[in-house]
């Protein structure tokens, strides 16, 4: 007689958005095993139709407050593409700096506040705030870099104001930028300490592997994050305008977010996919972090997305330092930053690597620059089918050796590995650690 399982984790905690984990098994056989997404339908692709090009990014950045800069970046790249806009090096540099800020902020919070409590058997970061106060203070210091950079360049991080198609509507002052640079440089030791901390807890993640298709951007000159070509570990490199040949969306009844597949039944995006596809292009600091964490490409343990994010914190940090140095030498004026946009009819596509993975914005405009059709493909959605397949492989492997509660906990950790949430640090505030 095999084992019976009935796991129903309602409104999974420590993830952004609403999801339930459902597992049913009887007589040792898994009958049902998936992640239900019960978030309300938000229909952005319908709301955007009829909006002017001036307002499309304003709307779509509000898909997610946490990846707001990422959404804005993909959105304005789609509009740039549709209108054939040329960008100055100054605009490009500031856009990249903002995106780096968001990647670092998001990864820091996921690694410290979501993954670390799991690895240490805590229900939240709270107990860590009293047992490891220095670690928690360091995490908050690093998190703040996202706000420091985005406040100076575009007014704020959540729904940035000045970041628009073709350029920026605000010229940051040299004085403000110097403060930003000082803040970034102040974090230098924190980056190494982060790698140390994660290396110390990395062994706590389950050893589980499932081969998968990794999809990300790739770029000839850098570890791709802002733009590039589309790379699949199964079907090779594609022009971004052919994204629909790789990213096939389909509906499933148990999720209000669409699922995505390519040649197999599922595909994966995110830090681990970027690492698997582009690890050779990491800078020295990123390479050193990967070595320290024992992470080698290709890695098929989805729990190690946490490690890949840590590698990226180290890599993106050094990229931000270098870029900031260049920006300080640039001539930032209205002449080099102000957008100069003439709308025209056409379709534009923007692909960006945001913290959780590849993000697609695809807009069609009429001759007045009014949006007539849009498609947005969100990284979390791209990972959903992959998560279901991971769970469906994992549960039979452990059904006879782990208890129902243990399996439930493992699955929660699995989902969290894919889906970072930045909003966790509030929890700390209950503790008097200053």
């Amino acid at each position, binding site marked *: 007689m095999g084992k019976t399982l009935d796991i129903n984790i309602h*409104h999974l*905690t*420590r*993830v*952004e*958005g609403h999801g339930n984990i459902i597992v049913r098994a009887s007589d040792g056989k898994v009958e049902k095993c998936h992640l239900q997404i019960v978030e*309300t*339908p*938000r*229909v952005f*692709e*319908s*709301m955007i*139709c*009829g*909006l002017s090009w001036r*307002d499309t990014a*304003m*709307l779509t950045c*509000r*898909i*997610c*407050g*946490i990846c*707001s800069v990422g959404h804005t970046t993909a959105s304005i790249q789609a509009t740039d593409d549709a209108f054939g806009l040329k960008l100055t090096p100054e605009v490009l540099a500031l856009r990249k700096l903002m995106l780096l800020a968001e990647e670092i902020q998001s990864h820091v919070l996921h690694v410290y*506040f979501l993954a670390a409590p799991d690895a240490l058997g805590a*229900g*939240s*970061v709270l107990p860590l705030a009293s047992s490891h106060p220095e670690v928690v203070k360091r995490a*908050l210091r690093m*998190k*703040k870099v996202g*706000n420091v950079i985005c406040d100076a360049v*575009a*007014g*704020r*991080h*959540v*729904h940035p*104001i*000045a970041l*628009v198609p073709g350029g*920026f*509507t*605000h010229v940051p002052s040299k004085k403000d930028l110097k403060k930003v640079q000082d803040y970034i440089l102040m974090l230098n030791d924190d980056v190494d300490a982060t790698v140390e901390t994660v290396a110390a807890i990395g062994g706590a993640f389950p050893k589980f592997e499932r081969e998968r298709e990794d999809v990300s951007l790739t770029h000839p000159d850098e570890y791709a994050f802002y733009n590039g070509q589309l790379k699949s570990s199964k079907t090779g490199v594609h022009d971004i305008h052919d994204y629909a040949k790789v990213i096939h969306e389909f*509906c499933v*009844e148990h999720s*209000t977010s*669409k699922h995505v597949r390519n040649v197999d039944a599922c595909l994966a995006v995110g830090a681990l996919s970027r690492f698997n596809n582009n690890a050779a292009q990491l800078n020295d600091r990123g390479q050193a972090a990967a070595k320290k964490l024992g992470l080698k490409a290709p890695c098929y343990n989805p729990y190690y997305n946490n490690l890949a994010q840590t590698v990226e914190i180290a890599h993106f940090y050094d990229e931000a330092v270098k870029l900031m140095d260049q920006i300080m030498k640039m001539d930032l004026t209205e002449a080099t930053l102000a957008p100069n946009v003439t709308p025209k009819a056409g379709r534009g596509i923007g692909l960006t690597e945001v913290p959780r993975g590849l993000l697609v914005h695809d807009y069609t405009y009429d001759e007045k620059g009014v949006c007539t059709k849009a498609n947005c493909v969100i990284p979390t959605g791209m990972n959903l089918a992959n998560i279901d397949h991971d769970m469906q492989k994992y549960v039979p492997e452990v059904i006879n050796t782990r208890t129902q509660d243990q399996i439930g906990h493992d699955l929660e950790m699995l989902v969290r590995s894919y889906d970072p*949430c*930045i*909003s*966790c*640090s*509030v*929890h700390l*505030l*209950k503790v*008097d650690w*200053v």
Partner: protein
Amino acid sequence: MAKPRVSFHDFTSCEGCQLQVLNCEDELLGIVGAVDIVNFREAIDEKSDEYDIAFIEGAFTRESDRKRLEHIRKCAKIVVALGACACTGGLNVLKNFRGIDESMKKVYGEAASWYETSPALPIEAAIKVDVKINGCPIPKQEFLEVVKSVLAGRTPQIPDYPVCVECKLRENVCLFQKGEYCMGVVAKAGCNAWCPSYGGRCYACRGLITDFNKNAAKDVLAEYGLTLEQVMAEFRMFNGVFPVAEPPADGALKS
């Protein structure tokens, strides 16, 4: 005295306003020393039905969410609507103008019938709200003001004058002077003219001031060459739940 128990909940939103709460890195510590946070699904495993103050982010866009809202209302002494989605329905209301069935079909195709949705509304459409923190996203300073007020048992000081006042104080060049247009003339202040100060126009994300002259506002926009359709689009962006977002009966823009 026991610390007040504080609870965070989210409905249809981007969760950016809860992030704004966390972004008060420097100021928040003092205040939260005074409270116990008992629900914050994004951050903690603990779940509790015993709390004094509930912060609710997000719009009410699904009839089946009514029960959850009513439950929160029953548990909390004070309900605070956090951000534009909760206060006015926010951007979500745009879908009401695009047609619910049509929007669902456009996004989900034949699978549209699998998912439940209804017109987007402020949470006030389901439950009584005691305090509103407006904005998309909320300004940090207003969140701090409201928390301090609620803890002290006084009424928070929220401006009821237009964004133009704050914009002038910041000595920004008026967007109308630059050939742009802006909702600052009718928008509720309190954000310190955030968007115009960074070169963006005001979308009135904090809602509209009380008793503004709606015809004059429409006249101003019309004078600067906006069509009726464009003026209505401006009002609908964040204020679609108000009657002003309906076009005049005679179809004429001028009052």
